[in-house]
């Protein structure tokens, strides 16, 4: 069942310039991106900085205004809903942020942080509210007695789990995880990733997982979309993308990922040289005259590549 359908969305930011500060051009942060999320799966959006992956995620929760295209959630068009009309859908679509330090208000107690969504949507008594908060705290592996603590008393990984608890309180169907582990150390990262997997099973969640670390994306995702300069250049199952990359950008990305075995070193340098050469030669066949990737074309049942 299709939970979320994103069709040809564009997010343009104006560039002002000239004498009168008029809009002279746009940054095409997201420039025609389409994909679908099936219920219960994890879809990964991977790309480098400036590829528009985070903007895409944030556009879905309306942190950015969509310039064109449609976003359909459970068959309802969300694209042009006002804040008020959007409110009921907020319960279903939640977000986990990248930076565990800035995503929690430093002046609020854990209780207030986790209860914020409950207070917006439900009327529950103070004791009831505290019980719910403690229950979620426990679920993410934190001491339920710590509800009166402030965020600075927790480590990065613990804070990220507070953020996760907050997004779970409304029992969402879809969670957009915007680089949820990129600010964390490896050992802590593993813990948060394991959590996200457990919670997915427990609450039947669907994830849109935005990230730049190809290892993490592979670990988490069923299907993956590779973004480059605001466009999807390739989409497929993780097998398709990692074992059989077809777009030159995807190939370059894969070649750049460090390999844990030192023996492969010489071979990898050779591969990177070869791919870089290929990239230069085939650039004009994979990108149009404006340097824009073509639309995705299916090459197998699951695998799509941006080809002319």
């Amino acid at each position: 069942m299709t939970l979320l359908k994103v069709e040809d969305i564009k997010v343009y930011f104006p560039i002002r310039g000239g004498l009168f500060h008029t809009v002279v051009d746009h940054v095409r942060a997201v420039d025609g991106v389409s994909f679908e999320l099936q219920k219960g799966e994890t879809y990964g959006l991977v790309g480098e900085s400036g590829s528009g992956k985070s903007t895409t995620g944030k556009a879905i929760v309306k942190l950015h205004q969509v310039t064109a295209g449609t976003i359909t959630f459970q068959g309802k068009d969300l694209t042009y809903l006002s804040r008020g009309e959007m409110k009921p859908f907020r319960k279903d679509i939640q977000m986990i942020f990248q930076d565990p330090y800035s995503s929690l208000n430093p002046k609020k107690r854990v209780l207030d942080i986790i209860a914020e969504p409950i207070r917006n949507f439900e009327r529950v008594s103070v004791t009831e509210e505290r019980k719910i908060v403690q229950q979620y705290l426990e679920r993410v592996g934190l001491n339920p007695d710590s509800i009166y603590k402030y965020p600075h008393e927790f480590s990065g990984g613990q804070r990220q789990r507070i953020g996760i608890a907050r997004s779970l309180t409304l029992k969402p169907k879809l969670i957009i995880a915007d680089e949820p582990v990129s600010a964390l150390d490896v050992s802590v990262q593993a813990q948060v990733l394991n959590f996200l997997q457990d919670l997915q099973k427990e609450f039947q969640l669907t994830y849109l997982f935005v990230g730049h670390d190809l290892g993490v994306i592979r670990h988490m995702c069923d299907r993956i979309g590779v973004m480059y300069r605001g466009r999807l250049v390739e989409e497929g199952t993780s097998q398709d993308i990692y074992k059989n990359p077809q777009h030159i950008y995807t190939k370059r990305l894969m070649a750049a990922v460090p390999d844990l075995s030192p023996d492969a070193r010489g071979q990898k340098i050779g591969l990177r040289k070869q791919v870089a050469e290929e990239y230069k030669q085939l650039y004009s066949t994979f990108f149009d005259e404006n340097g824009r990737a073509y639309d995705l074309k299916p090459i197998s049942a699951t695998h799509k590549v941006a080809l002319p």
Partner: protein
Amino acid sequence: MELNVNTEKHGQPIQITPSGRQLIWQQMKKDRLAMGSFILLVSILLFVYSAAFVMDAEEVARINLRALHQPPSLEHWLGTDYGGRDVFGQLIIGTRNSFTISFCITLLTALIGLTTGLVAGYFGGVTDHVVMRIIDFIISLPTTMFIIVLVTIIPEFTIWSFILVMTLFYWTGKARLIRSKVLAERELDYVQASQTLGTPHWKIMFFQIFPNVSSIIIVNFILNLAGNIGLESALTYLGFGLPESTPSLGTLISYARNPDVLEHKWWVWLPASVMILVMMLSINFVGQAIKRATDARQRR
């Protein structure tokens, strides 16, 4: 799996952390200068307000032609002015008036500055652009002259019109300061998080962002309070501050515009000057100490 998680639960005693206010208070207690200033200020204000309460204002304002420009004596602790009025009495009433009025101005400018700063910084874009152009314009006006002209052309000039005129020009600095802080705060993910959690804009502004800029507002409020005492008395000194029915510290100092008073009758203007200096210095010391305390807390 559970095993990994549970370890963090144990061995973490529930500690109640002191609130921000308590931390600042602890820092303040260590700072002897600030503490002394605070005690001094509170005692001056207590004395002045209670003395002014029991004092007969009309008695103080009554001209006594038999006691013109008398030097300090037992009867008149700080002598008398050109009208034979008791300087000490005027000092008490003047201090009370100066402080009260400055406080009102500071409060009004803080309210306006806070609201505009929050709105401009939070919404950004066109709103921010328009508000900032207005603020930039008001800041680049020759404020003193505009105030003096307004004071002269307003018919039926009262304390309230003075407070309003001052507010008109002095809300801008606060608005700009708060706006720049809010602008930085808005970029933080917790604001975006609140938006995705369905929290309305006004709640985000006043319940999420405001607590994070409140320490700056408090420090700025205190420093401005001192500044406004100076401004009010300077304008009154020039003769364009409070109406004559409401003497302030500036009124006493304004007698020094007469070179003879300045040179020979120090008791008329010096006590008021010292009073302003002492009040402004002690308010500033308290403010600076709070500023250091909040900075130190943020560094942690």
